[in-house]
């Protein structure tokens, strides 16, 4: 069962991630009254990036990008094999560090500042991510995802604050406006493309694929809030995940880019207000 889940994740995550990315571009375009690219465009892009000649600034960059991808995939596999959720989150942070290294080994100031902002973003997300783990533990007495999905009722009923906090930092994790600080999806930013400025050809393709894996993993955490032992919870979870993704696109299209200081302020405020209060209530109820 566990092996099957891992294989499914390995194969389906990039496909679904790319497809969602394509839909995202399409829906964004419609919100901006454009036609937009074909839904499969992200796949064409990645295919083309792989076909390009690989020119790198430093060779270590390729190694760092591959490590970034492998660690990200590893995190996802752990998550789907039903392992310790806290462990997943720590490995996830480690993966982020490798992206930071890949950005700062180059001489480009844009990439360098982008790397610093990437770390800053990690710092903004971390409390909410860790608190989510804690919330699940308090509720189910376990960090293991395999046991959490066997619960009697959906976690969201008891953890609405954690859900809200996680939804908020999802924008940062997906690098969408207003929090597309370290890199933005279109290069009209003061940092050009931030961390990805110096990535090209296959390295950029690796980044793209890693992002799909990461997005699916993040959406899976959202799903974890919904899924319980009833099979009906699975379609419900899919609906919630799609709604969350749509919400991200909507926010992306209705806001300007915030500055990093404001991002820290907002993300921590929301995390403490929503997840913190929820945590206190949970502890009192226990």
């Amino acid at each position, binding site marked *: 069962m566990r092996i099957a889940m891992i294989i499914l994740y390995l194969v389906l995550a990039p496909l679904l991630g790319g497809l969602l990315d394509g839909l995202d571009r399409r829906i*964004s375009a419609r919100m*901006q009254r454009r036609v937009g690219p074909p839904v499969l465009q992200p796949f064409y892009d990645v295919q083309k990036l792989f076909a390009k000649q690989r020119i790198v600034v430093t060779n270590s960059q390729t190694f760092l990008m591959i490590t970034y991808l492998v660690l990200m995939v590893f995190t996802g596999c752990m998550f789907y094999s039903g392992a310790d959720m806290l462990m997943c989150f720590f490995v996830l942070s480690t993966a982020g560090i490798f992206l930071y290294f890949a950005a700062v080994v180059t001489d480009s*100031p844009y990439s360098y500042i982008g790397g610093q902002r990437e770390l800053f973003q990690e710092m903004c997300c971390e409390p909410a991510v860790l608190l989510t783990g804690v919330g699940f533990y308090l509720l189910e007495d376990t960090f293991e995802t395999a046991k959490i999905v066997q619960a009697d009722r959906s976690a969201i009923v008891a953890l609405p604050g954690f859900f809200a906090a996680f939804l908020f930092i999802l924008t940062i994790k997906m690098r969408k*406006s207003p929090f597309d600080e370290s890199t933005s999806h279109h290069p009209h930013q003061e940092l*050009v493309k931030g961390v990805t400025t110096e990535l090209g050809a296959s390295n950029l393709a690796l980044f793209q694929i890693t992002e799909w894996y990461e997005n699916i993993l993040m959406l899976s955490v959202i799903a974890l809030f919904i899924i319980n032992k009833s099979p009906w919870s699975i379609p419900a979870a899919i609906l919630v995940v799609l709604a969350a993704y749509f919400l991200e696109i909507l926010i992306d299209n209705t806001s*300007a880019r*915030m*500055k990093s200081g404001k991002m820290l302020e907002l993300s921590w405020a929301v995390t403490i207000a929503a997840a913190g209060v929820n945590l206190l209530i949970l502890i009192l109820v226990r």
Partner: protein
Amino acid sequence: MEEREKKRSVVPFGPQHPVLPEPIHLDLVLEDEKVVDVIPSIGFIHRGLEDLVKKRDFNEYVYVAERTCGICSFGHGLGYVEAVEKCMNVEVPIRAKYLRTIWSEMARIHSHLLWAGLMADAFGFENLFYQCWRLREKNLDLVEMTTGGRLIYSVNKVGGVLKDITPDMQKVILNNLSELEAELRDVYKTFMTDYSVQERTRGVGVLTKEQVHDLGCCGPYARASGVARDIRQLGYEAYGELDFEPVVSNDGDNYARCDVRLREVFQSIDLIRQAIAKIPNGELSVPVKGNPDGEAFIRIEQPRGEAIYYVEGNGTKFLNRFRLRTPTFANIPGMCETMKGCSYADIPLLVVTIDPCISCTER
């Protein structure tokens, strides 16, 4: 002190940078993400157009003047012909004056909407950018209908204009402008009330009234700091017969500049309506005899601010000197002043906020 020096890094910004519509180079001295000093340099696209006036017939040169820049093209043509007309004491027919006024205002609507889009893009609001440029397209359609061109109007000549705006066209203009105005209200509301937009514009890049004066800034950039100066009040062309007041805001920050420019679009729409209501029948141009002699300074309120045209004739069909001082040239010192002490993330906004047009600045 030594320790602090080490932390500084110099980030080159431009001349090729995705957020810059045109090439300007800034060396930004950063401490972390705070800008402590900025050294501007231009000069990548100098074409020596002013010198070309010695080799082109003064009538032909109108087309060169128009091609100084893509956005303020009409204004440059207008400024040049006005200066030559002043030299030669040519009185332009009243209908031509009204037509020039209408096209000037169309150019202003075009320029300000383009700027609004670039501004939205600079603070990372992609959707707003597309909305602004979509509205701009409506205005471009009107320009295309009346002049045949979209950016280079090419309707000015010494002594009048080359094309007419017929009553049918006037109806279409009024109709389309009403549509544009209605949609622009939503865009204006977003610029003024959206939380994330205000987060990026309020209190950023503040220039006081005194600073604006000392640094010689002009146009909407100066009006956003409370300087109620609009060269259109000189009453050149038909402006003397139209009713308007300069659009002024007092905060002097990016928010105020958005406010001033967008309100000016509404003002322009109103001016076009007034002009169409008042436009008399008559000739489009008068014949011009002889060659320009003497000199003349002309000031014109371009969309980006006060532009100055200086023409010096010598009695032949070639002018001795044509001088064009563009608003961007005057606003660059102000821009550099606002950048000191700002955060790196604000740089694109502060560049865009003067509505830079480097192409016509360097000529």
